[in-house]
């Protein structure tokens, strides 16, 4: 079974999960009765006859009078066509699609930077603490990762803000970019940068290095917070799987070959130890996206998470449900990538 057969099989497996995901989101958004949905589209001030006409028009538009599963298919058809409904939250109100186009890039930015940090920090530390087990470094690392694992994400964020932002004053800790430096840029119109809506990349495209560096500084703190929250569990998993691998026969055989201890660790042990970490990376991505909600609120970094919490405060059902669906899709895509990477690394899966 070569690689592409395996990938196709994974894709086919995605379909039931996808249907399940959309069904859950549909149930959640429709279980509280149709009037809640209508309240989304009709401003409370509208009353009397005008309200009736609008209600009637919306009912047949959304087929609200038909049985539940027919509604589901219509709703799903709407989603597939890209019309995800409407949301009104303090920071943004209008079509969900534009909200996504606006906020998604920022969240992806933080998540990707955080993932890179997790792998760059997590792997060497996990391997190091397993190799010289019970050394002082190992103990401090374990205590550090235990504490980080036990700390709620918002506490990590606040501690970082206090330490780095307030006390040392070297890193900005709120918003995406310093409004002063951006006000003059032509491509930055009331909070939205064009063409990619990510200020850092747009600044680079437009060659405004000052703004780019400022945007980058704003990016560091949220991603570091997110990374610290997840790196703790990764170090724990990597350390225990590394310890298990170091007891295996093939490591003893590698040592009996007389090759240097460093290559025994890097070539033989590390690759095998990473396998369970890769499979559990799907969970860390879930933690990442979950964490983004909190991190964006603390650093008021306008991403999907910030939009979700705003939607929660004003109980805007459209926002929350589309956010849940969006996060679900991102996670599913991430899990697919994780499976493919795993098949690449572990030959036993491929054939």
């Amino acid at each position, binding site marked *: 079974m070569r690689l592409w057969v395996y990938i196709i099989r994974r894709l086919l497996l995605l379909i039931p999960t996808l249907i399940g995901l959309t069904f859950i989101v549909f149930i959640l958004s429709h279980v509280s009765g149709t009037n809640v949905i209508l309240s989304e589209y009709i401003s409370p001030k509208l009353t009397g006859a005008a309200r009736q006409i609008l209600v009637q028009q919306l009912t047949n538009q959304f087929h609200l009078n038909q049985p539940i599963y027919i509604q589901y298919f219509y709703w799903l058809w709407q989603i597939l066509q890209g019309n995800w409904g409407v949301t009104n939250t303090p920071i943004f109100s209008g079509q969900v699609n534009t909200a996504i186009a606006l906020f998604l890039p920022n969240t992806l930015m933080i998540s990707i930077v955080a993932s890179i940090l997790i792998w760059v920090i997590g792997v060497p530390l996990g391997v190091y603490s397993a190799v010289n087990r019970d050394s002082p470094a190992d103990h401090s690392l374990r205590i550090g990762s235990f504490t980080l694992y036990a700390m709620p994400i918002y506490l990590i964020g606040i501690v970082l803000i206090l330490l780095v932002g307030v006390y040392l004053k070297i890193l900005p800790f709120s918003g995406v970019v310093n409004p002063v430096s951006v006000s003059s840029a032509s491509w930055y119109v009331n909070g939205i940068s064009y063409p990619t809506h990510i200020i850092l990349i747009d600044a680079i495209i437009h060659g405004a290095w000052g703004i780019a560096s400022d945007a980058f500084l704003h990016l560091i703190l949220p991603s570091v917070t997110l990374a610290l929250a997840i790196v703790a569990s990764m170090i724990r998993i990597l350390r225990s799987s590394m310890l298990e691998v170091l007891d295996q026969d093939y490591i003893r*055989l590698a040592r009996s070959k007389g090759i240097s201890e460093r290559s025994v660790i890097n070539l033989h042990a590390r690759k095998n130890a990473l396998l369970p970490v890769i499979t559990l990376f799907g969970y860390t991505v879930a933690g990442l996206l979950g964490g983004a909600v909190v991190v964006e609120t603390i650093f008021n970094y306008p991403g999907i998470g910030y939009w979700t919490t705003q939607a929660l405060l004003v109980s805007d059902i459209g926002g929350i449900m589309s956010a849940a669906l969006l996060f679900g899709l991102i996670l599913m895509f991430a899990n697919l990538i994780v499976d493919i990477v795993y098949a690449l690394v572990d030959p036993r899966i491929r054939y």
Partner: protein
Amino acid sequence: MSYTLQVSDLNVQFYTRRGIYKALNGVDLSLKQGEIFGVAGESGCGKTTLGLTIMGLLPKNAAVTQGEVLLAGNRDLTACLRNAAPSEGEKFNIKQSEEAIKKLNRESCDIRGTKISMVFQDPMTSLNPVLQIGFQIAETIIAHQPRPLAERKIARTKVTHDDLGQIIKLLKEGADEQAINKYAESKNLHGIEDQVLSVWRRNDLGETKKEKIILSLHSEKLGSFEKLVLERVGSGKNIGGWMRIPGINRAAKNVLLKEGYIKATELLSMLEVPNPDKVVRMYPHELSGGMRQRIVIAIALANNPELVILDEPTSALDVTVQAQILELTRHLKHRFNTSFIFISHDLSVLSEVCDRIGIMYAGRIVEIAPIDAVFSRPLHPYTRMLTKAIPTIDGNEIQGIGGTVPDMRNVPIGCSFNPRCPDATEKCRSAKPSMVEVEEGHFVACFPKGD
């Protein structure tokens, strides 16, 4: 009489939470050149610990309290392990033992894999599941003998078509290895003879096919970077200097690795592995148990070591596959003139292959006998009862040994077999018998019946 290995009064102890296990209580052993020495014993007698101690692969909670292991007369392998062991009364310090093991690993890099190598019991777990077979073989060659590899490749670029024709003519006239070596030396094509001979010795190819392969060995083109690496390694210098930068270092290693794969193919064809060039690219999980054990043996013999320790190599294999491996071991013994230590719990397997057998009980060698003497005239009561307990296919009466294996935390004083020994005397319970040479080459650690 040159001994490849001398073990004198070796004592090893394991410190666990449930007490101190005395695994080895004074093992004496001297191994002649090119000999297969069998170590037989039941589980818990310390035979695997003996193999691991010689290789220096003991776990953290183990310590060599006494005795030494001398390789080829001078090199003491267990020095740093010994002085890490706690002296009498002092508590075992795991930190110290860990340091000692790290030091030992660094120091014995030039012995393990070249002078001594080891084959473990279960072929299913001995090979790294995520690395290719060729890589795992080439790795040990590159670690210890990068220079011959480089020379082989350079030789291939320098050799001309008629040189090869000349060598084939020599081979056809039945010239032996030295003659070919001399010829290669004269044309300073060092390294070509090794490749030609390994192709010539393959018995799964026809005469003409071999000639075709040998003749195709010439005029190999080299990239500039490859040339640089090979020159450097060929002249004996290791990959140092500016080549130490990670990116370049890996590329340099890959150059050698490609040649390592070719050498691995030759090794595997010598060990009768069918279509070796395909196997080199495969992963361990695609091969059967017997095939994997051959590959582990190939790894062990890659740098033709002086001593190979085989720890129960055939116990996890089927009878017919085991016969293949035992046949292979006999064949290798003549071919390589290395000495082997063959550890097994099954005396009949040892009788197939070994020249001398040492019977171990409770961490000591109680009898050393030439192979035919073990079954015909066993001297030590334990050996006598052991040979009687093995069922054979003509359905003889078998008789077990009373009692159980002694608890290694408090080994019985005097001769450790006395609780289960039928003719144990008062002397056996008090004094520890030393090895006595009853016949030529036949030693036993037991008081003669009389006193």
